[in-house]
């Protein structure tokens, strides 16, 4: 066992994903606090060049194999657990993401390591690594020690800017290239291919103003109120997850973790609670205005302005007043 900290790198179609840099920034905090080393674990095929962007780590272990070219839970879990086994680090950081969450649980059981998920920040407190996790849709913070000898952790974005983890410490880190420690045949999950997202009617990432709707809209019929407002504003309608899962709007309109990241001049969040999965897609908008009758909704911690009024009462009034203001040549 060592005091070292490991980060499991996430890549998708030739790109290192931003969550990796968030993990490296968090890993740096832990490694510096523990006086230990930060290692980035990169899996792929002919992907050695990507290690150059992992300069926040002290070193990179790169595992190359054709079966690792695209993520699959089976091959990745086997490889990660095998490589990490000797010597076991103090902490292993995964993204709380589509890839990270597919493997973190299995790897933690393989290593017999305690697991804590959806952490937003980490620190070293009295010589012990400490997690701060966001649960219950961002309404509750849970924190505690990361138990040893090895602890597996998944992290959500928001606690550390990816830029902080992108900064090279002293140029490209030394890379150790290796083979998977266990055979990658007889895999039970195979990668077949990618399906591109449907070409949306509107690219919400390019819309200057977004009227974004959430569960508080209550009924599909009410969405036309948001459409009307977006039309007079010259913007588009976007949505949080429940609206898309109900089939009220296509997935091309989804903002957040599995949807788009948007930075419009105005983000008007209507009946959206602001769970971490949503927040990560819109927190950098220039002006965020939230309307939600739940005054304790996490969206109010991100928004610049808010009003705890009924969305359905506000929408027609706001649309009329904007129409009138524009009519006066405002």
């Amino acid at each position, binding site marked *: 066992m060592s005091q070292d900290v490991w980060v499991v790198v996430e890549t998708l179609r030739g790109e290192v994903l931003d969550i990796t840099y968030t993990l490296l920034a968090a890993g740096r905090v832990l490694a510096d606090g523990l006086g230990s080393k930060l290692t980035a674990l990169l899996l792929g095929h002919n992907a050695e060049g990507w290690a150059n962007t992992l300069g926040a780590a002290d070193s990179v272990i790169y595992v190359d194999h054709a079966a690792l070219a695209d993520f699959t839970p089976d091959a990745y879990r086997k490889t990660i657990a095998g490589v990490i086994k000797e010597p076991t680090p103090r902490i292993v950081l995964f993204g709380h993401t589509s890839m990270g969450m597919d493997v973190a649980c*299995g790897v933690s059981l393989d290593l017999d390591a305690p697991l804590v998920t959806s952490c937003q920040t980490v620190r070293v407190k009295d010589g012990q690594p400490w997690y701060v996790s966001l649960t219950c849709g961002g309404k509750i913070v849970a924190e505690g020690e990361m138990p040893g000898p090895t602890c597996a952790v998944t992290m959500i974005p928001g606690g550390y800017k990816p830029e902080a983890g992108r900064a090279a410490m002293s140029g490209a880190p030394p890379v150790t290239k290796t083979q998977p420690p266990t055979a990658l045949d007889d895999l039970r999950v195979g990668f077949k291919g990618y399906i591109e997202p449907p070409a949306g009617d509107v690219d919400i990432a390019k819309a200057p103003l977004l009227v974004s709707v959430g569960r508080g809209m209550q009924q599909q019929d009410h969405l036309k109120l948001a459409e009307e407002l977006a039309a007079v504003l010259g913007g588009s309608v976007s949505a949080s997850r429940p609206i898309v899962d109900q089939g009220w709007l296509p997935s091309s309109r989804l903002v957040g973790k599995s949807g788009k990241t948007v930075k419009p001049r105005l983000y008007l969040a209507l009946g959206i609670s602001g769970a971490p999965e949503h927040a990560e897609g819109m927190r950098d908008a220039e002006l965020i205005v939230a309307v939600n009758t739940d005054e304790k909704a996490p969206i109010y911690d991100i928004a610049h302005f808010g009003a705890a009024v009924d969305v359905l009462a506000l929408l027609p009034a706001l649309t009329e007043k*904007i129409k009138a203001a524009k009519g006066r040549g405002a």
Partner: protein
Amino acid sequence: MDIAVLIKFVPDLVEELEIGASGAALDRTFLRLIPNEQDDHALEQALLLKERHGGTVTVLTLDTGDVDETLFTAVAKGADRVIKITGDFGEGINNHAAVTVLDTALKNISFDLILTGTQAVDDLDGSIGPLLAARLGLPYVGYVTGVTSADGKIVARKEYPGGLIAEMEVRLPAVLGIQAAEKPPRYVVTSLIMQAMKTAQIEETEAGAVEVRGAAGVARMSRPEATTHAELIEGDADQVADALVTLFKERGLLS
């Protein structure tokens, strides 16, 4: 194809959440528990697969409170068997403990596929799906938004950021974490649920010993301390609308 669906009961986030006297867990005295929304999508996906390929759907849940109505609703929607796992879950149990209980209960059930939500809103020690898969030695794919089946294999549509989908071929038996079913969960009228209450039987099984290990402990719970908070606009809807028009004008958003 025989499918087992796991439903977890979680705090209703619409209600006020109170932190208990220990300062390290939710106060469960008035806590309202509801079925985890993604688990409802898992049930829907199971019912869609049954409609297309035949087989059975068995729903399992830990008896953490008022679970009967949810189980009868599952029957009304088309589930074949509903099973309530009883035990001492008074203060709630973490996911690591829950999968040991589910593991035991599943020994008496025949299944090709286990479906559950990709995650639950109160998860802190991983999610039920991948933990259970690892314990059972089965493959797992999560963030799934659609499943097709052919020749003893299934193809899961796995969601990545930006709406990109990866198709994964998965050998059965397997566990999938459902992010969203191919269609919104079906609605059933109350009369069908009432009918299920009269005719259907909820099977009960004892949890047996609950193993608790593998989860990091919680030292302290709190409400998030925001570094910033929205400036609140007071007044009724009409006054708020006026204030917003003024704000948008100032920011040059109406030109």
